[in-house]
C-alpha cells in the first residue's frame, strides 16, 4: 500500500495527492507518469507526475475526477492507502539547456507544467510559463509559477483555443523560442503545436492515450507519429508536435466513452 500523506481539492473536480512511494520519489522526473490502482477491482490509471519530494519520500500527482475509477481514487483521504502506485514510467523529458522555452499547460496538467518549468529553469533556460483553465477558480499554482518562472501567464479560456491561442502566438512572435512544451487536452496541445510549427519552432507534446499496463505490453496507447505507430508508454509520452496524428488520437481517446458513462452513473448511484 502507498499512503496518501496529503490531499487537496482544486476546483472544479481536481484532487492533489502526495503519496508515500520512496523508490518512485527518488527516480521520478518531469514527463514521466505513474500507474495507479485504487483497489482490487480498480483500473490501472496513468497519472503524470507533478513533483517528487525524495526528502519526504513522496510523489505529487494531480488528477481530475472524470470517471468511476478516478472517483474511487478521489474518495481516498489523508492516511488512506492506494493499492498500487507503479512508476516512474515513460521517458523523462530531456531537461537540458535549450535557451528560451515556453511551457503551456491546461487544466489538471498545471502542476505537471510547473514541475517541468522548474527543472528547465534549473538548467539555465529562460522559462515562460502559460497556465490555462476554464474558469478563474480553476487556475492553481499561479503564485508558484510566478515565482518559479522568468515570466508567467494565467489564462481563462473556455474553448481551449481563443484567448490562449492569441497569447501563445504573441509570445512566439515576440521571443525567439527554442522549444515549446505542452501538456493538457488534445485540442489545446494541438493548437499550441500548430502555432509553433507555423513559426518553425519545435514543439514537445505529451500524449496520454488509453493505457493499460504502461510498460509496452498492450499497445492500447498506440499513436501515429510521422506515419509510424508508436506506443506512448515506452516511446513517449513526449513526441514531436509537428508529427502527431491528432485526429486518430482524439478518436482513440473516445474508445470507451460509452462504457465510462455507464460506470460513472452506477458509481454515482452507489451501485458499484
Amino acid at each position, binding site marked *: 500500500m502507498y499512503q496518501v500523506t496529503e490531499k487537496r481539492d482544486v476546483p472544479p473536480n481536481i484532487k492533489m495527492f502526495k503519496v508515500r512511494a520512496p523508490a518512485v520519489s527518488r527516480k521520478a522526473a518531469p514527463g514521466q507518469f505513474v500507474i495507479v490502482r485504487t483497489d482490487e477491482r480498480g483500473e490501472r490509471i496513468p497519472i503524470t507526475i507533478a513533483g517528487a519530494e525524495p526528502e519526504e519520500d513522496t510523489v505529487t500527482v494531480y488528477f481530475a475526477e472524470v470517471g468511476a475509477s478516478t472517483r474511487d481514487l478521489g474518495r481516498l483521504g489523508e492516511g488512506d492507502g492506494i493499492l498500487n502506485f507503479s512508476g*516512474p514510467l515513460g521517458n523523462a523529458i530531456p531537461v537540458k539547456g535549450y535557451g528560451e522555452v515556453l511551457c503551456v499547460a491546461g487544466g489538471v496538467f498545471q502542476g505537471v507544467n510547473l514541475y517541468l518549468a522548474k527543472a528547465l529553469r534549473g538548467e539555465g533556460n529562460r522559462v515562460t510559463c502559460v497556465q490555462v483553465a476554464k474558469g478563474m477558480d480553476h487556475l492553481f499554482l499561479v503564485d508558484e509559477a510566478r515565482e518559479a518562472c522568468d515570466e508567467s501567464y494565467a489564462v481563462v479560456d473556455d474553448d481551449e483555443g481563443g484567448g490562449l491561442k492569441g497569447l501563445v502566438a504573441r509570445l512566439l512572435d515576440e521571443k525567439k523560442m527554442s522549444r515549446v512544451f505542452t501538456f493538457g487536452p488534445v485540442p489545446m496541445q494541438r493548437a499550441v503545436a500548430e502555432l509553433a510549427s507555423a513559426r518553425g519552432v519545435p514543439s514537445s507534446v505529451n500524449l496520454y492515450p488509453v493505457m493499460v499496463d504502461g510498460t509496452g505490453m498492450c499497445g492500447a496507447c498506440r499513436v501515429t507519429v510521422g506515419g509510424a505507430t508508436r506506443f506512448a508508454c515506452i516511446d513517449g509520452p513526449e513526441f514531436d508536435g509537428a508529427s502527431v496524428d491528432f485526429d486518430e488520437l482524439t478518436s482513440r481517446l473516445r474508445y470507451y466513452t460509452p462504457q465510462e458513462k455507464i460506470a460513472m452513473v452506477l458509481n454515482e448511484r452507489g451501485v458499484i
Partner: protein
Amino acid sequence: MASGAPQVDMPKQAPEERKSNFDEVALGYSEEQALAEASRCLGCKNPRCVKGCPVGVDIPGFIGLVKERRYVEAARRIKETNSLPAVCGRVCPQESQCQMSCVLGVKGQPVAIGRLERYAADYERSSGAQGPARTTRGGGRVAVVGSGPSGLTVAAELQKKGHQADVYESLHAAGGVLMYGIPEFRLPKDIVQAEIEYVKGLGVNLHLDSTVGRLLTVGELLRAGYDAVFIGSGAGLPHFLRVPGENLKGVYSANEFLIRTNLMKAYRFPEYRTPITVGRSVAVIGGGNVAMDSARCALRLGGEKVYIVYRRGKGELPARLEEAENAEEEGVEFMYQTNPVRFIGDDRGYVTRMECVRMELGEPDASGRRSPSPIKGSEFLLDVDTVIVAIGQSPNPIIQQTTDGLEATRWGTIVVDEETMATSISGVYAGGDVVSGAATVISAMGAGKAAAASIHNYIEKRGQSAT
C-alpha cells in the same frame, strides 16, 4: 493388463455450457481415474519421459507414489524439480514433450503424465499440507527481473540452494503470462497464486509495481549489492500487421485483449472497472495458442461469430491440437489460408469490416512450414466489430534500452550462452521468452533452471576468489 488399456479421459465442462462462463474447462481426474491412469505407467528403469521434460521431473517416481495413494508425497517429488506443478499439469504441451517420449506411446497411447501431475498438485494444495520449511541462508543475493515462469523457477531454485532471491515484477500481480495471458478457464488464477505462495514460502521476496529499467536499472541492482541479476522479462511487446486501419477502435492486440480480460477481469465490468468491447462478429488473426485463448475469451464475452483467421492451413496451426479442438467445439470458426489486407471503419472510427485475401501455400520456408502468398483477385470483405491481432510478440525493450553493454539481437532478444544463460555482462543472466522469443511456459522454466545452476556456480566461485 493396465498398460494396454487406453488413456483415462479427463472430464470437461460441456462445450455448450462452458462457452458462456470463465470457469475451468478441464475438470481434473477423480481419485479413481488418477489411480487407473497411474496404473498404466510401466515405471521404466531408464525412463525416456524424464528426458523429454525440460526441467527433468522424476515422472516414474511421482507416478509410483500416486499408485500408492501417497499424493502429497507425489506432489513433493515433482516440486523437487518443478515449483509450479499445478500450472504445468494444465498448460504444458505434454504431447510434444514427456508424453511423446513415453514407451506406451509407441504402440498405443502414452501415460497422461500432465493429468497425473495436475491431480497430485491439486490434491496437495487442497489438503492444506504445509510446504517445506524456509531454507537456511548464507549464500548470495540475486535480483530476479520478472515473476513469470522463468523468474519464479530461478528464484525457487536459488532459494533451495541457500541464496536469497528478490523478485521484481512490473505489474500489480506476480505470475507474468500465467496471470495476464493465459485465461482463467484454462488456468485459474487462484491456482497460480497458490503456487506463487509456495515459492514465497521458500523465502523469496516479491516486489510488485517495480519496473526494472525505470524504477531501478540492472546496473543499479548490481551496485546495490546483488551478486547476480537474472532477466526474465518475457516477450511482452505485441506485433501488429502494419496494414491500413489497424489503429481503428475495436482492433486489439491479443496482449491487450487478454490483459483486460484476465489480469483486469474486464469480464466482470463494471464491478471491476476495466472495460472491454466485444462485438457480435470477432476476427482473431493468427493460429497460435494466444489466438485460441483470445477467440475463446471473445466467445465468453458475448461474441456471436468468432473467427480464427490464419494465413496458412490447418496442418500448420502452431497452436496445441487440444486447444484448437477446444476452440472448435465451442463454436469458433476457422478461416484458413486467409490474411487481412486492411481494416475499414465507420465515421466514428470503429472498425466495421476487414478486407481479406486468400493465400496459397508454396514451398516450405525457413520454419519448415509451407510459405503463404496472396492469390491475386481473391480479396473479399468480412463484417467485423472486433479484431484481435495475435501474430506474436517480441521482447519488451525497456531493459535492453537501459542496460549498457547488454548484447541483444536485432529482434530484441537478449544474447546468452546457451548452456549457462550468461549474458554479455558478468553476473547478469537471462532466460525465457526474452531470450528465445515467445515460447512455452515449460521451456522458460527449463531456462530458469539452467540459469539458477550457473548463477549458483558463479556465486560460489566469487565467494572462493574473495576469500
